[in-house]
């Protein structure tokens, strides 16, 4: 029986790596992938607690997060394609149309 | 979850049996394919190496090993080399959850004064009977897209790239129809486990108080649409003709594996035939009653296991022949038609079938 805290620590490490990606990278799709990584780390936490507390609610949340991540990926990638059509790059620093 | 050395050895035995069959699919199917196409097109086919050209495939395999392994200068070296293994991994693993015979009780026996299988031991002829069952097949099969996509991208060749993009679009689209078609069967069986799906099909329908039909899903009117969608989507999912847009010799040279040579090419070939084998095994399990022999109640002994295993092999071999048969009989479609029927025809049909099955269950007909 693996202690729940180990899963939580793994999840924290993965989440931190995701944060690192969002903070340091400028390639839009890599940033997006880092966000997916963070979402997955959160899923792991939900599941670890669901197991610990013997409840199904955490599992349902994982289920919903997966569905919403799919929707998010579709719309996000469409936005990046559209950005690429306009600017020929997906560097997020170049997406400054609404910047003052 | 206690297990001892005997369980591990039994698992190794199961894996050895399946792997032995699985690795030999490719040479045998290549021979069947070539002789079958020759039969259909009224020409002799390979007949020089060995009786009926049976050893031709092994000669081909030897040739593949001896050939020079070329890596294009512009290719991404790492991914170019890894791509065939990405393709082969799902093909090798998906078969693990498919049951291939009736379970039986191994009796206690004494060999060289040692008691083996104390108190008897149940032998279930499936490598991994997991509770997620068929979802594992779909999960691992969904990874097979990567082999093709990465192969196409890493080759740095526009034909490979087109083949890869077509193939991944096609496989993602048809995966939906395939999965939804299978949902009908799972709904009726009430379980995701493939062993339960087969057990559900071992009974009988009685028609007009006279005819006893085996309760295979293919005989149930609620499943006909689902069977049609599943088997046709299976062709698309394995990139076989009439849906072979990943390769499309006439337009894309050889599609995603244009740049591949030697054993790497042979690995793609093996992956394709193994995917075919998995698809045939799935159709057998979901619709043709798996290892069930009609009008015969297999005993839970070794004999029963052997008979049911042979029944499974017979159904499976027939389906494999159908793959070849269709390939050399039906002309290929256009790509836009393929996508259109996938999304606008098969997907709605699969959903309609789920509703039909749900209605049947509500009416207590199945």
């Amino acid at each position, binding site marked *: 029986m693996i202690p729940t805290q180990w899963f939580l620590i793994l999840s924290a490490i*993965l989440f931190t790596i995701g944060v690192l990606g969002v903070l340091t990278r400028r390639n839009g799709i890599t940033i997006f992938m880092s966000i997916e990584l963070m979402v997955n780390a959160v899923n792991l936490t939900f599941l670890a607690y669901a197991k610990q507390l013997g409840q199904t609610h955490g599992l349902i949340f994982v289920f919903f997060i997966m569905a919403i991540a799919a929707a998010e990926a579709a*719309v996000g990638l469409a936005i990046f394609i559209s950005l690429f059509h306009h600017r020929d790059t997906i560097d997020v620093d170049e997406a400054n149309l609404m910047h003052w | 979850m206690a297990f001892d050395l005997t369980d591990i050895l039994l698992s190794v035995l199961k894996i050895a049996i399946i792997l032995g069959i699985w690795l030999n699919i490719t040479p045998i199917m290549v021979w069947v394919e070539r002789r079958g196409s020759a039969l259909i097109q009224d020409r002799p086919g390979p007949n020089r190496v060995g009786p009926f050209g049976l050893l031709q495939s092994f000669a081909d395999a030897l040739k593949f090993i001896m050939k020079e392994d070329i890596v294009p200068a512009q290719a991404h070296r790492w991914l170019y080399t890894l791509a065939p293994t990405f393709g082969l991994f799902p093909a090798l693993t998906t078969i693990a959850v498919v049951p291939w015979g009736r379970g039986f009780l191994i009796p206690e026996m004494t060999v060289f004064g040692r008691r083996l299988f104390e108190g008897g031991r149940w032998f279930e002829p499936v490598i991994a009977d997991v509770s997620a069952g068929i979802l594992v097949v779909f999960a691992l099969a969904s990874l097979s897209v990567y082999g093709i996509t990465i192969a196409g991208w890493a080759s740095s060749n526009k034909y490979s790239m087109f083949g890869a993009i077509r193939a991944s679009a096609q496989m993602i689209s048809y995966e939906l129809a395939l999965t939804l078609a299978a949902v009908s069967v799972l709904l009726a069986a009430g379980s995701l486990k493939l062993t339960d799906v087969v057990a559900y099909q071992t009974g009988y329908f009685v028609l007009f108080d006279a005819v006893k039909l085996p309760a295979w899903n293919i005989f149930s009117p609620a499943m006909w649409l689902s069977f049609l969608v599943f088997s046709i989507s299976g062709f698309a999912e394995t990139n076989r003709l009439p849906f072979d847009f990943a390769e499309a010799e006439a337009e894309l040279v050889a599609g995603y594996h244009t740049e591949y040579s030697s054993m790497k090419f042979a690995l793609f070939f093996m992956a394709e035939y193994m995917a075919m084998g998995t698809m045939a095994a799935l159709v057998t399990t979901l619709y043709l009653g798996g290892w069930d022999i009609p009008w015969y109640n297999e005993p839970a002994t070794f004999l029963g296991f052997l008979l049911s295993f042979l029944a499974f092999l017979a159904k499976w071999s027939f389906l494999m022949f159908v793959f070849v048969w269709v390939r050399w009989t039906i002309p290929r479609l256009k790509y836009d038609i393929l996508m259109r029927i996938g999304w606008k025809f098969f997907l709605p049909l699969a959903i309609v079938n789920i509703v039909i099955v749900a209605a049947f269950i509500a009416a207590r007909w199945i």
Partner: protein
Amino acid sequence: MAAEFAIFFLFAAIAVIFALVVVLHRNPVVGALSLVASFFALAVMYVLLDAPFLAALQVIVYAGAIMVLFLFVIMLLNLQRAPEPPTRPIQQFLGYTSSAFFGIGLVYFIVKYAVTGAPTGQFRATAYDIGVRMFEAYIFPFEMVSILLLASIVGALLLSGRSGAGSRARIGDEVTK
């Protein structure tokens, strides 16, 4: 059991290493594939947590669908040919240090304060249990998610579709150039 711990550490290491590759590697195709490997390792974690159903879903949804979409877009946009952007040392430094602090703090607080209450019931994560729970207690959110998915399909088609290239897609260009 020793085997369980070995599997945990092996796949935890795989998940972390491939996650680092995603963040640090220049080539987005390699990044996307590493993310697939990382998600696969996470699916193994789900199996260790007695939820094989969710593990299968994780592989189907993330590895099989979402990441294929990513890979598809990266390939279509041909991003690996894009020039490497110049690094900005101050931002990089701030990013690394702040995320390091964040990570250390997170692990510290988990070790110190993580709630480890006693189980209130038997943990069952089969398709049946999840289905019953979802269609009894969570039916309204479930329907909302289906509407959200529909909206995202329409949104994605609208954003990436080229049918209006002559009119709509030009608007941004005129403003910027």
